[in-house]
């Protein structure tokens, strides 16, 4: 297979060259935020580091971290580095876990982002000939518009359908012959269900590639999506604080991990507890410094996403480091009776059981002083039996598999189909009813 690059020179640059570009951009960035943004200046002064101290990429570790709270404390525009008349667009997070965070873009930022996103699409095998159905939500969420501009930049045809209304999505897919689908993986499964109930076999559609992201998903879930939608599913990574979709993209050749567009985003992996930078290849919290953003750059932003960096060369020829599929978030990590659990681990177990539908929910309660976890699984026709014994064996098997992988005993509750809420954006996997 011939690999097509969007910006071949930058994507295949020897690391030495890449690092020199990164250092130059980093020095420029640090000098600029120190001069223009008071909260950054204050934190750097407190840490006793000045812009001229950044002499090599190794000095990055001397700079203070930026956390979600810094964004909230400076809500809405306090961390912008340019006057508001330079800002042409804002996006904001949903604020489900507190006050929302707002990010801004200059017109050059929008242009850079479109280029990065075009690179990501190209990396996933999308070309000008493709009909791209963009089912990421349009609006304050970066997914919809971020992908949209990249699809246009690439020269493919964008269908700006946004999220939701599955029946319409499928009609469009059929009538417009969409070849590429962009959505969250949970919504992709939702679409697969809808196809099933409309009696439209995925093989009758023209879908070729699905670019799925914005929430953690397991390898088993990938297989499920590929099988149910009859396409090749690749992972995309991004977060609004850092830019939006397109920070990293899995290529068609990689068997693990997404290429980080390192000339724009400088990654580190740290120990989430101590904040220490971990050696290459170790798993920890992903931290990003944006190298080219104007309106809202970030220095050492803690993403809370758990991943690892893979420096081994990739078959696609890109020299850009890969980040492993995000396996969880430091903040959706559940601690049940002292054991750390990520919803994606539970998902991995469930998807490994024949016939289990990819719709599940984890409910955590506190009974007395004891935390209990129950996993709700929908009973599909593939799982169902008219014999109690068979269903009981099934719940016991899931329970045992979770116990052996996670070391925690949970209750497995079989529920009727379609009773777990379907997502039109990010799936809500955990309901934590503990009052702590």
């Amino acid at each position: 297979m011939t690999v097509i690059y969007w910006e071949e020179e930058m994507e295949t640059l020897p690391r030495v060259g890449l690092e020199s570009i990164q250092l130059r951009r980093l020095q420029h960035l640090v000098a600029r935020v120190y001069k223009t943004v008071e909260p950054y200046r204050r934190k750097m002064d407190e840490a006793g580091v000045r812009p001229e101290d950044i002499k090599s990429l190794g000095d990055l570790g001397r700079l203070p971290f930026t956390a979600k709270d810094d964004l909230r404390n400076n809500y809405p525009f306090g961390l912008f580095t340019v006057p508001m008349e330079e800002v042409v667009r804002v996006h904001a997070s949903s604020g489900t876990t507190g006050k929302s965070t707002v990010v801004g873009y200059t017109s050059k930022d929008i242009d850079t982002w479109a280029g990065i996103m075009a690179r990501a699409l190209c990396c996933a095998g999308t070309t000008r000939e493709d009909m791209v159905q963009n089912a990421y939500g349009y609006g304050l969420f970066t997914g919809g518009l971020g992908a949209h501009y990249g699809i246009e930049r690439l020269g493919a045809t964008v269908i700006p359908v946004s999220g939701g209304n599955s029946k319409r999505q499928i009609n469009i897919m059929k009538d417009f012959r969409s070849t590429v689908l962009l959505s969250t993986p949970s919504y992709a499964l939702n679409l697969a269900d809808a196809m099933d109930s409309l009696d439209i076999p995925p093989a009758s559609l023209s879908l070729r590639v699905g670019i799925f992201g914005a929430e953690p998903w397991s390898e088993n879930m990938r297989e499920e999506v590929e099988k149910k939608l009859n396409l090749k599913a690749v992972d995309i990574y991004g977060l609004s604080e850092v830019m939006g979709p397109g920070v990293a993209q899995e290529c068609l050749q990689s068997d693990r991990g997404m290429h980080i567009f390192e000339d724009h985003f400088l990654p580190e992996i740290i120990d989430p507890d101590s904040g220490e930078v971990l050696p290459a290849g170790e798993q920890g919290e992903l931290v990003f410094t944006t190298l080219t953003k104007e309106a809202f750059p970030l220095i050492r932003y803690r993403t809370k996403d758990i991943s690892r960096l893979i420096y081994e060369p990739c078959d696609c020829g890109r020299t850009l480091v890969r980040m492993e599929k995000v396996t969880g978030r430091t903040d959706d990590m559940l601690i049940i009776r002292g054991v750390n659990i990520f919803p994606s681990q539970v998902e991995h177990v469930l998807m490994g059981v024949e016939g289990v539908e990819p719709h599940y929910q984890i409910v955590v309660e506190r009974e007395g002083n004891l935390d209990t976890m129950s996993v709700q699984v929908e009973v599909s026709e593939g799982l169902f039996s008219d014999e109690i014994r068979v269903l009981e064996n099934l719940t016991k098997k899931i329970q045992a598999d979770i116990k052996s992988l996670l070391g925690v005993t949970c209750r497995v509750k079989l529920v009727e189909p379609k009773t777990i809420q379907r997502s039109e954006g990010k799936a809500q996997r955990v309901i934590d009813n503990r009052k702590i």
Partner: protein
Amino acid sequence: MLVEQIAVFLENKSGRLAEITAILAENDTNIRALSVADTADFGILRLIVNDVEKARTILQEAGFTVGKTNVLAVEVVDKTGGLATVLKSLHNAGINVEYMYAFVNKSGGNAVLIFRFEKMDEAIDVLQKDGFTLLSGEQVCAL
């Protein structure tokens, strides 16, 4: 000789059974026999109806998980020991019953026993050899 039965998955929530029976009634589906097996969390409703495919489709459309299995219907005289003789014959042949339920046919004075076995074919041979009457699906619905 086999009778088709549908099974429906039920969470233990109030009103589910009422909902299913209402759906079947609205669609002119007559229930000939039923049983509910339950655990603390869920139940399985097993039904023998006059139109299996129709009942299955309407329940699926209403969002239920529905399965179809084959069972055996054995007719015995409705008097003391009727069931015992059938079970004895099965026991002697070493055949295990997965589950069973029964209903009484008022007009004919007979009882109908519905059985699910692990080894359905062997069970048919044994019951026929011992002279029991096996009913077809049509016969069960005609009672």
